[in-house]
């Protein structure tokens, strides 16, 4: 039996696997986009006064 032969299960679940793959890719794009926006806006910047008082 050829190693590349697709099991019937692969064919049956093809649509589901593609859908899940696209969902995960969209999730990655969302997290990446949100991170870029939040860093760009300075949401994660620490107040210099806070930093000095912490030392």
């Amino acid at each position, binding site marked *: 039996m050829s190693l590349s032969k697709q*099991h*019937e*299960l692969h064919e*049956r*679940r093809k*649509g*589901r696997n*593609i*859908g*899940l793959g696209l969902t995960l890719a969209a999730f990655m794009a*969302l997290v990446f*986009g*949100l991170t870029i*926006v939040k860093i760009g*806006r300075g949401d994660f910047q620490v107040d210099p006064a806070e930093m000095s008082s912490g030392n």
Partner: protein
Amino acid sequence: MSDASFDNRPIENEAQFGDFFALLKPRVMTLVVFTAFVGLLAAPVSVHPFVGFCAILFIALGGGASGALNMWYDADIDAVMRRTAKRPIPAGRVTRDEAFAFGLTLSVFAVVFLGLATNWLAGGLLAFTIFFYVVIYTMWLKRSTPQNIVIGGAAGAFPPMIGWAAATGTISTESVLMFCLTFLWTPPHFWALALFMRSDYDDAKVPMLTVTHGRRSTRKHILAYTVLLAVFAIALGFTSIGGPVYLTTAVILNALFIKGAWDITRRDEDMSEADNFAVERKFFKLSLLYLFASFGAILVDAVLTRMGVML
């Protein structure tokens, strides 16, 4: 046994990606997306477009997740009713456990990511909406009171409030009135439908006002809620988000809506059956236009304000 340890028996009716999507009740989601979008855009602060997009997406996913949990709990009555018998669980394509896990995971995901993307008030409101729809409405009151439509309507009314909270981080008169608009619109909308559609809620033992209190009483309830709706809808026109477009639209729509409700109240069953419920059907169609035109007008006023156009 084969060399693979997984279960490789052919399974009839195996769930596809679309079945899990159907669990999210995509048609209900369109209303959620639209009203949340209006709430977000009507807010007097600017939101980064990508953050705004994410907020709407997470609100929609939260709404969809509550739909999946509703289907998980209501699988027994969905199987009895013709309208819902083809849903993924009663059709045997998705198990109840799968729907529960899917709905719960998606709920947590939507709430956490809405909180992270915007603020925790918006995340908290989304969590409360899911809790309200699944626990208060679906599990508790849907099967025990004929006011179930009123209570269920509250869950569908939260999205513009969440959209507003996502933008501003607050709850205000404007967002509460937008909530009231959908909340008070839901009962006349559904009861008009109940008057002309033979429902199989009876077979499912879900109490509907038309059955428990009679059709005469349902007609009176429609008028009462329509008048109450008009008060809140016009009041919204005098807040910061109500411009001339909204106020004009609201006056016309509410006048038509009250006229329709009054006509419904004056009729009896013989009159309705004689013309195949023409007035009730017309009122139902008007109710669809009412909600989209009302929120559409808020959106137009918001866009005009942002563009600096004064009417």
